[in-house]
């Protein structure tokens, strides 16, 4: 019996040891390092373990606060738009089509497999001064000179982020909507609830957990977006991700960049708590 127990432990170690070590060394340690760095300082281009809160104090400068605020606004806007755009699609896929369900689902998933760099880049071709939209506008005689605010703006960043992350909203919501008990909907109908009332009082509340997960999946990467604002935002629409990247590049201020990153993670954590609380199944509420 003891021999068997020993063998069991050996086998468990063989399976769980390597992944634990790997993730410990390459995820947990780096994240811990980042937390440490955020309390250290740079002196003469060297990072010194000199404990300070100065990095966090610097974050309170209007410049950084403004960029944080803009990033939160864009991330929230992207999340709301994804929800509004994605909900009807998830609803259609889950409840309104049997024949095309599979193919439509594959079509929603497929973009997730493709490079978000390429998907961001595509918008440069569409929104640029010589881009497809401007060509169409000029061709239709709606404008003589190209519209220059399309690219390198909050608009371009928001549009591209919605494009990139809307499948992240659709899929978890689809999973929830698909599992909805059809008997509940039947019951609502039998009790004389119209289509809208059934949706507002039964389907929508029951689908809130899916909405919450979807919102989270959109908000998190939008909050940490770097490639998209860098390529489409230009100088007019800087998000915090680019500022963080600068600290780990030209500015060589790892401590400040780490403090910013931890702040981003804190914002994500707060948002996650709020989203998930709001998304608790509302069926129990009066």
């Amino acid at each position, binding site marked *: 019996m003891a021999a068997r127990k020993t063998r069991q432990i050996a086998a468990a170690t063989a399976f*769980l040891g390597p992944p634990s070590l790997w993730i410990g060394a390459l995820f947990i340690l780096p994240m811990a390092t980042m937390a440490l760095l955020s309390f250290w300082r740079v002196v003469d281009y060297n990072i010194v373990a000199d404990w300070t809160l100065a990095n966090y104090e610097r974050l309170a400068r209007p410049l950084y606060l403004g960029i944080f605020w803009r990033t939160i606004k864009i991330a929230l806007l992207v999340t709301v738009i994804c929800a509004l755009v994605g909900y009807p699609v998830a609803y259609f*896929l889950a409840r309104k089509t049997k024949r095309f369900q599979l193919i*439509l689902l594959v079509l*929603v998933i497929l973009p997730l497999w493709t490079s978000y760099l390429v998907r961001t880049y595509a918008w440069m*071709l569409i929104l640029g001064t010589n*881009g497809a939209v401007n060509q169409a506008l000029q061709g239709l005689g709606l404008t003589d000179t190209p519209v220059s605010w399309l690219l390198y703006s909050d608009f371009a960043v928001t549009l591209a982020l919605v494009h990139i992350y*809307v499948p992240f909203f659709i899929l978890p919501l689809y999973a929830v909507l698909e599992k909805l008990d059809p008997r509940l909907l039947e019951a609502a109908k039998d009790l004389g609830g119209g289509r809208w009332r059934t949706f507002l009082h039964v389907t929508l509340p029951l689908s809130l957990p899916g909405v919450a997960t979807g919102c989270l999946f959109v908000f998190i990467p939008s909050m940490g977006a*770097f490639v998209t604002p860098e390529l489409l935002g230009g100088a007019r629409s800087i998000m915090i991700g680019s500022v963080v990247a600068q600290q780990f590049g030209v500015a060589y201020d790892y401590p400040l960049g780490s403090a910013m990153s931890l702040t981003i993670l804190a914002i994500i954590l707060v948002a996650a708590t709020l989203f998930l609380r709001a998304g608790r199944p509302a069926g129990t509420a009066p």
Partner: protein
Amino acid sequence: MKAHSSSTILLGLWTAFVLLFLFAPLFLVAVFSFNDSSISVFPIRAFTLRWYESLAANEAFRTALANSLIVAGATVVFATLLGMAAGVGVHRYVPRLRTALRSGASLPMMVPHLILGIALLGFYNLVAIDLSLTTVIMGHSVVAFPYVFLIVSARLVGFDPSLEEAARDLGASTARIFWEITLPLLAPAILTAALISFTLSFDEVVVTFFTTGTDNTLPMVIWSMLRVGITPEINAIATLTVVVSCAMAGVAEVIIRRSRLTAAKKGE
């Protein structure tokens, strides 16, 4: 066959519109990659392969392609092996902590790639590891690990433990049970996870950006070319990477369908 209500038709139209929004930009890039014009604007002139030919002749592109394949290949090996070991290990040896560990293992997914990238950079810097393709592979394997772990775990949920027990009662060793029972059952999940790891790595920009030394991968080439300006070659590389990713997705889809079919035939 009942007539569709107007709301169903509206929802269908909206879905079609959203799909158009998802695919049209990619389609546009592909069209321009075959357009015989050095600027990416309408009208479309004539079909050409010259941008692809000029890529093929481009040394930087060929090196980056090779690097991307090396990195993605190594990421597949590491992420798949580690994710599979973790999935099987958690399922088998710490069943009580399954839910907790599954949430824990998905944590790297909840961290934006930017933060993962700079955290790795700070860490490599502190422990004085030189940046190279190896450090990129290590980073990518962390990105891909949770996906493999979750896919394998999901497959194990519907796994009948009596199969393993029967084999054990018949005297099979742990290793033999793993090779002859667990692994074949997991094969579709592992293949899917491997394909996802490949595309995750093949398309990864941000972690690569912070953890690479002087070596470039394909997305890094697109990235640095974009800093200079839009060229038709970028359209060609972009189209190529999308085709590779879609091919992977297609193969994964076939594997998943097949395994469901066999499962259905076995009467599960």
